């Protein structure tokens, strides 16, 4: 058993995370003085998950979210997708292993992966609406969010959802409010089988090694840890029975990375665009300085008067 995080005291606790811990803010320069904290991580062991949705329920309750009661949609995945209220979702996939012909019911808890290189943060135009703490948590500041949905495009995992009510982006915060006072996320607390564990990223990787060894002993030769390097690693990691095929787990990206289109948009376009516009304006100014104004001369006016007079007096009656 992974040592459970002790319950908090009832006495007030000063938060251990603050603006001083921010390593990145969206649409802002790098904060200069950062108090680096040990990176944290949530490890989701898909092989231990029984799909009970306690995590989903705990998430709704802890975050005081109101999800709509939907309809049956042909799977146990309810609601059928992440929403601004459902920050985490159990996704169920019925997969027949072609090697064994056995059915495997893959149950993956979907939600924000808390990338080390967060695409949402990169895409966000609102300064400080998306922040990254030195412990790795990527969080949304709803007071600053403008609801543009750029984070949705920036995210390689299709996680953020924009509320149609308050037009703000929502996603898992890794319970930054709980982590700030030394607790684990609500989903981890609620998980009955320790399919979700929480600790430092180093601890989680070590713990995952033991799990992978166990899975390999049970015949899952491709068991492994999902900590995709394409996004600099994540602070939510999965232990997968078939780590060679992440996409069988309800479309978990095989090699997630920030889309090159987003990189181009938020990278070169941003700077080149400003440059081109500035150049155009500057060119105009220079041209004016060098050439001066293009003026109508008195001769031009005279020619015009002459033509007008001639034509209108004669031609008019032709």
């Amino acid at each position, binding site marked *: 058993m992974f040592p459970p995080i002790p319950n908090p005291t009832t006495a007030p606790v000063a938060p251990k995370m603050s603006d001083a811990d921010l390593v990145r803010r969206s649409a802002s320069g790098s904060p200069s003085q950062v108090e680096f904290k040990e990176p944290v991580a949530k490890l989701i062991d898909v092989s231990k998950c029984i*799909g*009970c949705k306690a995590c989903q329920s705990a998430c*709704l309750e802890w975050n005081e979210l109101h999800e709509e009661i939907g309809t*049956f*949609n042909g799977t146990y995945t309810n609601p059928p997708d992440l929403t601004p209220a459902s920050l985490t979702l159990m996704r169920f996939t*019925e997969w*027949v292993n072609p090697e064994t012909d056995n059915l495997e019911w893959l149950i993956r808890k979907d939600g924000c992966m808390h990338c080390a290189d967060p695409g949402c943060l990169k895409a966000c135009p609102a300064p400080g609406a998306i922040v990254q703490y030195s412990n790795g948590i990527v969080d949304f500041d709803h007071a600053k969010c403008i609801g543009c949905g750029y984070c949705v495009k920036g995210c390689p995992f299709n996680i953020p959802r924009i509320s149609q009510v308050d037009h703000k982006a929502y996603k898992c915060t890794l319970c930054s409010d709980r982590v700030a006072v030394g607790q684990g996320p609500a989903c981890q607390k609620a998980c*009955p089988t*320790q399919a979700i564990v929480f600790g430092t990223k180093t601890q989680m990787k070590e713990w995952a090694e033991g799990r992978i060894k*166990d899975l390999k002993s049970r015949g899952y030769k491709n068991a492994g840890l999902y900590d995709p390097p394409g996004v600099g690693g994540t602070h939510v990691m999965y232990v997968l029975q078939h780590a060679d095929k992440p996409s069988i787990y309800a479309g978990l990206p095989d090699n997630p990375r920030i889309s090159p289109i987003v990189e181009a948009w938020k990278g070169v376009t941003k700077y080149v665009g400003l440059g081109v516009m500035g150049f155009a304006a500057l060119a105009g100014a220079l041209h004016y300085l060098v050439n001066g104004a293009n003026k109508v001369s008195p001769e031009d006016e005279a020619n015009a008067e002459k033509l007008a007079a001639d034509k209108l007096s004669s031609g008019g009656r032709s």
Partner: protein
Amino acid sequence: MTNSWTDIKNTDLVIIMGGNAAEAHPCGFKWVTEAKATRGAKLVVVDPRFTRSAAVADYYAPIRQGTDIAFLLGVINYLIQNDKIQWDYVKAFTNVGYIVKEGFGYQDGLFTGYDEMKRDYNRSTWDYEIGPDGYAVVDNTLQHPRCVFNLLKQHVSVYTPELVERITGTPKDKFLKVASMMAECSSPTKTMTSMYALGWTQHSKGSQNIRCMAMIQLLLGNIGVRGGGMNALRGHSNIQGLTDIGLMSNLIPGYLTIPTEKEPDFNAYMSTRGFKPLRPNQMSYWQNYKKFFVSFQKAMWGASATADNNWAYDYLPKLDVPAYDVLRAFELMKQGKMNIYFCQGFNPLQAFPNKAKLAEALAKLKLLVIMDPLETETARFWENHGVYNQADPSKIQTEVIQLPTTCFAEDNGSLVNSGRWLQWHWAAGTPPGDAKPDTYIMAQIHLRLKEMYKKDGGAFPDPIVNLTWNYKDPHEPSPDELAKELNGYVVSDVFDPNDPTKKVLEAGKQVPTFGVLRDDGSTAAGCWIYSGCYTEAGNMMARRDNSDPDDTGAYLKWSFAWPANRRIIYNRASCNIDGKPWDDTRKLIWWDGAKWTGYDVPDIAPTAKPQDVGPFIMNPEGVSRLFTRGMMRDGPFPVHYEPFESPVANLIAPKVRGNPVARVFKDDFAQFADVASKEFPYAATSYRLTEHFHYWTKNNHVNSVLQPEFFVEISEQLAKEKSIQNAGWVRVWSKRGSVFAKAYVTKRIRPLMVDGKPVHIVGIPIHWGFVGAAKKGFPANVLTPFVGDANIETPEFKAFLVNIEPSTGPVA
């Protein structure tokens, strides 16, 4: 449970059959994942559906619902044929060598003594041969043709892997794989735990399903040991407490029994409850029955229960039928013979079979009282909800009174979990509106009745007028007071018989354990098995010390477990005949040369010599029973019987329909589909989903979000055959009713080949109704048959027949 939830972490093999622990018991299931993660334990799931338990299993085998006995007898046959039996255990601790009476026999699915008219057996031959010394005759060489082993070997020999496949639909290779995994646990250092629940109980032969696995566990030497046991996973958080407290019409708290009308006086009652040992030296603990009974009577009627009036024996009702179980109650209601019904935390319109019959019965009541924290369908049975509840209020005269009660989170008290732990809980919230604790409501009723009986007399007012009611506030007995009463207390001082100056028990004190209860009226105890839960040392149920020396999983200082804070019952069997643990790495208790000691409270007299006294102290034999004498109505050995509604005839006994001794009311028989019915060709089963708790959580928004709408599960093959679309509407109907549901077309259900013919399975979750936050839907009991288990009348919810067709959905 013989063991506890926490003990499951000690196992090597978890077999989930007749249950779905991951889905229905997710919190307890943590100990399975723990066993897997830390011990490398394997998990096997045998179920008609690929469940969420199967999703995390090492091996899954499908089985047709209602054929578990054929599978398990097949396993016993495999164990015997392959000699995978823990012989030292079996020979020492079971009745394998006992000689069965001459005249006992079995043929064509029936044992000797069957009376077709009565649907009952004369069980007189189902017993041991008793020697001239008054003890059962035993042949430890197992040579005697009528010894239990040889009878068993003969009985199971027909259940070959081939026959198992033909009956159960489990492919032979899968059956053999499961059997071989189980067989490995015949080693003294390997254990298997059996986790089961309603998947075994809700059959017309539910008790025998469980018994069958218990026999396997005995043959493997897995009872009484760490990581072993027969572990019934209780559904409601306090359903264990319900049976302990005797909330059945035929029980008295602590598994004592209500007298029958054949026992008009106390002597007649006690004459069948002597429990004389059947072997020398055995404890036969039920010999103390009278102590527990008298103490109960003293708790009930105090000074009015005296030696002179036989401890108020006459105050007890005498049963004229085996039991007034819920099925019988509704039958009587329907016949107009039961006029008033109290539902306390009970929603029978959803929870019992054949909703149409239940509604018809409720409509014949004069008064229906509902005590519940939630709005229930039963309370609204008279209300028209269109297709979901087609009642006509203008034709129903039943007066319905709803008394809102507090829920478990709004009051103090204890809940007994599956592992027999009495865990105290504290109120976490204030009750809404006018909700009152159940105890308050019952006190009001009682005090008013008492007043009326005092004033007006009546045929026999004594049991009510004299009922002990010594509570600080008679209008609201406190949970602590009630718990103390259950624990028991000393009525009058008791002195040491050898030294009359020495006071052994002091009047007014709480008793420390049931060991001190007496049959002379000097002690009182409301429920003897709970003695020790609330002693002079305080409320033992409220203990929260989770220390666990050497990580045995016993947690002796956490709450209180009945009996006597014992965590694994029959734990004497964790040692061999000499009192040495079978497995040194999994020691539980042991004989230190003078007494029993160890991590758990020994389930044996502390100084009982290991070679002399058997571990199964509740049995007069001192050993456990592979042959269960006449104690079960449907046979001393389990037999494969088909469900009453079966897609095929019984292969081993084609003439036997269902369980031959299960009680069926006349009208209900007519409402069963024929065997192998063409009209109802599909084998249905009903079950729970992890997102919901029975019919409660559909009142809760979050749960309703997680599983919003009624659906049924079918295979891709059946969907194709019937042109049913995933998430499309279907109509499902049985001989008793019809429901509309969304279809879940899934790979997790596959048709089974049963005796060469495909059997399609239709899975029906139970959680929807016409009240609550979730989408309106149908409960599964619209479809299910009105018949129960032959021994305890648990309804057959798990196996019945339906038909299915695509639909455009309900028209409200």
